[in-house]
């Protein structure tokens, strides 16, 4: 049964709520009463639950199976976290309550901040950014504020070719000119080229480490030192922190700022595209420029640093990034995850994630081109190219073929530095048994691509939809429902 839109089954006079009746009174809306029909369609509760339950069944999630989407770290989302976030003491408090009435909430933020700083060996953390890209912006603005504070008008941010698109977009948004840093043959930053480019116009280098090819940048410390010597800052994209958490601390590698995707490394749910949460750890050089609000503890009391006391307590802060204090609901989940694992468990997380990825890399490299496999082990994700596919067969075909085998595909065509890239990230919460099954399916589909199996070009065949026409969608965008 196809599930039609609510606008095709509900009605403006249908509703799934009961409300107390409104007594007679004189409205005080100043003549602005809404008179026209709004066009919001309602359903009874029974129909509503069914509508969304049916829709949900058209989706694939981690709960259903392996989700090897590289760079997205689709790990198990513990249900304890959901339960903790829903305690009324966290879920039902207002951001502007008197601070004396939210001491537990402030303490929780402080505790999570403490873990993040210790796990990264960094002296400060800005908690309010709402997602990874927002965290990047926070880091770059802190860098810019720090440079401005010393009267240094640098204009360029260097970004590796393989970077997430958010990196250049963020730098541009903050008013910087973006220049690419090339990669070397082994998939790492070309350190010599980077060093050569450094100079008084370079404000920062944005590096993803482990990088988007799934490799650790072995020269990270060398790079940091060079960048610092050149008077610039090192921004580290922390999207892949999962590979090293508990084993390696970015602060030990000379990083000045790094955002941490709580929804990646610390298991808060992705929810079909958010909400995320992107706290940013900062070096001593950048800490004074961190945005407010921030939580401080004085004596036994927690308080917020915000507009009213920023001059006194955070005079160099670059200001406010969001209306309130950040993604509290994600903080509770992340802290629940972190405390459940502890320092020992988090180390194991990194180890198992890396082990799983290398296991896939080594189990596939005989049938699939793994451009960097020769240079050694990968970190949390294994990267392959489309080399060897039959004519006309593409990475997209393999991805859609995997759907028919019951899997969510890996990340496709990213990073751009690898032709027809397939980026496979298993995370630590996949069992050997499930990975073995995936490897068998992946090998089967890859073989079809190499054999030129025509039916693969029209996959998926067993999904809720066949291939969707994205070009048509973009050519004539239909973004809202309209009656035919």
């Amino acid at each position, binding site marked *: 049964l196809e599930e039609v839109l*609510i606008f095709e089954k509900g009605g403006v006079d249908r509703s799934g709520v009961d*409300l107390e009746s409104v007594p007679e*009174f*004189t409205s*005080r809306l100043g003549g*602005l009463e*809404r008179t026209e029909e709004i*066009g919001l369609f*309602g359903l009874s*509760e029974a129909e*509503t639950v069914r509508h*969304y*339950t049916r829709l949900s069944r*058209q*989706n*694939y*999630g981690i709960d259903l199976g392996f989700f090897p*989407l590289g760079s997205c770290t689709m790990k198990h989302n513990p249900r304890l976290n959901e339960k903790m976030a829903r305690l009324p*003491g*966290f879920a*039902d*408090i*207002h951001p502007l*309550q*008197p601070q004396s009435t939210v*001491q*537990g909430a402030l*303490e929780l933020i402080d505790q999570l901040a403490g873990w993040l700083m210790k796990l990264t060996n960094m002296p400060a953390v800005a908690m309010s950014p*709402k*997602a990874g*890209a927002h965290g990047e912006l926070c880091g770059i603005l802190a860098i810019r504020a720090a440079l401005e504070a010393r009267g240094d008008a640098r204009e360029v941010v260097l970004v590796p070719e393989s970077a*997430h698109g958010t990196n250049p977009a963020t730098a541009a948004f903050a*008013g910087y000119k973006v220049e690419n840093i090339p990669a070397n043959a082994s998939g790492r930053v070309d350190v010599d080229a980077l060093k050569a480019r450094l100079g008084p116009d370079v404000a920062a280098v944005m590096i993803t480490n482990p990088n988007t090819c799934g490799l650790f940048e*072995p020269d990270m*410390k060398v790079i940091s030192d060079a960048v610092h010597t050149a008077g610039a800052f090192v921004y580290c994209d922390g999207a892949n922190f999962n590979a090293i958490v508990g084993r*390696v601390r970015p602060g030990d590698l000379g990083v000045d700022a790094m955002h941490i995707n709580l929804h990646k490394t610390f298991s808060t*749910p*992705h*929810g079909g*595209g*958010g*909400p995320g949460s992107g706290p940013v750890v900062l070096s001593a050089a950048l800490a004074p420029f961190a945005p407010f609000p921030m939580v401080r503890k004085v004596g036994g009391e927690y308080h917020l640093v915000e*507009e009213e006391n920023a001059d006194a307590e955070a005079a160099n802060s670059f200001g406010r990034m*969001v*209306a309130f204090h950040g*993604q509290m609901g994600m903080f509770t989940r992340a802290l*629940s995850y972190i405390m*459940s694992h*502890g*320092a020992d468990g988090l180390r194991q997380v990194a180890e*198992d994630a890396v*082990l799983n990825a290398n296991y896939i890399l080594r189990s596939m490299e005989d049938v699939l081109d793994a451009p960097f496999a020769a240079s050694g*082990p990968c970190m949390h994700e294994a990267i392959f190219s489309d080399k060897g596919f039959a004519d006309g067969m593409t990475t997209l075909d393999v991805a859609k073929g995997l759907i028919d085998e019951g899997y*969510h*595909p890996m990340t496709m065509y990213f990073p751009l530095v690898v032709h027809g890239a397939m980026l496979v990230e298993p995370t630590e919460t996949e069992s050997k048994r499930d990975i073995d099954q995936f490897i068998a399916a992946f090998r089967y589909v890859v073989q079809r691509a190499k054999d030129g199996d025509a039916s693969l070009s*029209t996959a998926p065949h067993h999904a809720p939809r066949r291939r*969707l026409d994205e070009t048509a*969608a973009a050519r004539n965008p*239909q*973004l809202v429902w309209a009656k035919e």
Partner: protein
Amino acid sequence: MRYLPLNHDDRRAMLNEIGVNSIDDLFIDVPKEAQLSGAIEGLNDHISEMAVERHFHGLANKNMVAGQGPFFLGAGAYRHHVPASVDHIIQRGEFLTAYTPYQPEIAQGTLQMLFEFQTQVARLFGTDVANASMYDGSTACWEAISMAGRITKRKNVILSGGLHPHYVSVASTMARFTKDILDIGMPDENGDADMARLLSSVNKETSAVVVQYPDIVGNVQDLRALSASCAENGALLIVVVTEPVALGAVTSPGEMGADIVVGEGQSIGVGLQFGGPYVGLFGCKSKYVRQMPGRLCGETVDAEGKRGFVLTLSTREQHIRRDKATSNICTNSGLCALAFSIHMTLLGEKGLRHLAMLNHQKAVSLADKLHALDGVEVLTKQFFNEFAVKLNKPSRAVLHELAEQGILGGVSMERLYPGKDALENIMLVAVTETSTDEDMTRFVSVLKELVA
């Protein structure tokens, strides 16, 4: 380690298969000096689920829960009743544990929901189109300002004095780096002075005028003259809605001519959560769609001609355009958008209008009761469910005393506008369907004593 499936035997077998001796052999790229030999010092080891629960209950119990007594806070975050089915549905694993719908064939659930959400937001706002959500209202507001700049190629932006001060603060932070020029106002009782300022300031250099509706002190004002003036000058009118329930009662910003309407969707389906995650709403006229930030879901067909939905116009976005993108955003607030959409579907137009009138009626009732007290004056004359109240003493202290007596009475203007002495005695009071007559009676009687 309850979340980790691999056991010792698995790890051994896999290391063998890989052809290395130990896990350390997989970390050889990490310089020795940066490798930690054991768990990080100064941190606790793993604990049981029960122990985690105890810890969190301990922290939660230190907070004063909104639902435990009379509660009248608003100022950009509103406490509404969310039906139980909303939270049930958003916890379905297929919604909760899915990623961005990059593979639309197996993400139609998320995509159809987003399409429905966009339609709901556009209709509520009275705009042609809407996007798939933003981080929150304050960032949506800045993105709208930024979008207006891309459209008008101008740098001057006029912010109404009625715009939430945190939204102003966010915009100011961003403008400092982007070199946009913000003309910032201060709130006034009925918004007339501010409106006069806006009308007199807008000119051919103006990129956008930003007004909040209802505004920070609860005023609802007719925006038609302003939108006409903007249009005349080639400036865009950006309307910010922090309480979307209001739009069940008052004329939509789109109907009054707004070019871009943004908002905070928290009121519908999401809950207070100490400020986040929330959901930013973003709608605009269709002619500006290619300058919109954020994700968009569009209708299309599959290879068999069946209707389906995909993320579209991604050529605006960072993963394609990189440093030329319309914004750096690569996350929406999907699960909150889902909650918003479910709640809106449960309400339907009939329910939303009823809910809105219930809010308004309760607010009017409380305003009248408060105004009748000696030492208390309700300043806002035209409002929806929130209004400014002037006391005969600093409001912040009074609010603390109310909290001592179990009443969360409102938001002090001193906290929102630190250092503005003229506002020190004023507080904002919001009333929703969750306030009972008993709550209001108790609030009035305790306040009466405190201002006596």
